[in-house]
């Protein structure tokens, strides 16, 4: 059952630094109808091919600035919001990145808008290819 686009189909890739592959990356939109400060992002959980990424290995980039999930707890700057309808880039630090070929991602966006009694948990799944 298809839904609206969550992941950027062109966003899945390995990340290289100084000639070495240090991790993999994807881009997705917030499953919420409003832009918000990063400080209300409780967690981004990433599972690729059945393997959970560690929270400390996750990096989150909006508008050219990158944060850990821990740092995001105090990011309230207007320039670094997760804007409605815009992709945020998630990088998972992983030596060697992902193998070429097909993969499956299950990522959870856990966001806590102040007016909601409970945090929202949006499971975002997709198949993708590393070229």
């Amino acid at each position, binding site marked *: 059952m298809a*839904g*609206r686009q969550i992941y950027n189909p062109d966003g899945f890739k390995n990340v290289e630094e100084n000639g070495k592959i240090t991790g993999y990356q994807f881009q997705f939109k917030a499953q919420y*109808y409003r*832009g*918000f*400060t990063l400080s209300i992002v*409780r967690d981004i959980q990433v599972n690729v091919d059945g393997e959970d990424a560690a929270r400390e290995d996750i990096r989150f980039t909006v508008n050219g600035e990158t944060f850990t999930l821990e740092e995001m707890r105090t990011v309230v700057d*207007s320039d670094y919001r997760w804007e*409605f309808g815009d992709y945020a880039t998630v990088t998972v630090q992983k030596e060697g990145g992902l193998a070429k070929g097909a993969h499956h991602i299950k990522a959870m966006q856990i966001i806590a808008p102040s007016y909601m*009694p409970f945090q929202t948990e949006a499971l975002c799944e997709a198949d993708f290819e590393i070229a």
Partner: protein
Amino acid sequence: MSYDIKRSVSLYSYQDEYYDGKLDLEGCLRETAKTGATGVELLAEQMIRRFPLPIETQEFRDQWFGWLKKYNLEPSCYDAFLENKIYDNRTLSLGEQINMMKRDIRLASMLGFKNLRTLVSTPMDVIEGSLDYAAEMDVKIGLEVHAPFSLNSGWADGYMEMIHKTGTKHFGFIPDMGIFCRNIPDVLRDKARRQGASEECIKIVDDSYAQRLEKGFVKIKYDLNLGKANMEYRMANGMKEMMDAVEKAGGGPADKAYAGASFTYSWSEPQDLIDNIDYIFHTHAKFYNVHEDYVETAVAIPEVVEAFKKAGYKGFLSSEYEGGEHLRDVGVDSIEQVRRHQEAMRRAIEG
């Protein structure tokens, strides 16, 4: 009573098209104008990047007022979100929350809005502490009455007390027409079917809703702990019995989701609008699915508009489309839905 009922569109209605990049903010205004609506309701945090900075610039405001002129639209309501848990280590203090509310009042005012929507989660003392500033800026704070809340209830009474105590002319209610649902919307039901819910379980849930409607819903109480208030409300309205029946009928995830979601709709008497009309200056015309024949699946539009006429309502009915979330797997067309809803309202208002 002489009434002056105008039509507005809340840009919330176009969220799916905006999300997909099919419409931008100006595009939403353009589509709004095409429906014949003369008012626009804005969620600044939804469609203005780098909120609130652009609103502070002359450039953006000039562009905004230019668009309003171009599309012949009046700002009907500014929807605020009080991010009082912006940090995870605490709830903002009363003073900080009041500062945040004042900021939103100021932003609303800068964009030409006379009404500001605040959510049920806004503590009463935050509203009370902002009334002087609201009066100074001539912006009315409207508490959105959204399912499962209702007018003419213990919950609303608390706010009525505050109005009487302070004598304020700048606080009132914004009913969301989702509190006038005769039944669960068909789009929710059809989605449940696509997800594998059984007709038996669907019937249990629908019958349960019909019973609540007939008996009269037990109203929700005022409690700053909204999770608690919500849970007590559901239990008082037979949620346990309904869930047990669904369980017994072998209900799976789709059945249980349908059952749980059914509590986000409610019915209250349109008479409540007449009783409280002195405090109603804006309305969210919530809707879920308007068919080709301009009949909406759940919200009792004709009865509600009739009550507004009888009450002498002077204000906007602001289309707020919330059916898209149940159609994302098969395709959403908010533009067409809003067009139909505006026509349905036009007929009810002019009929």
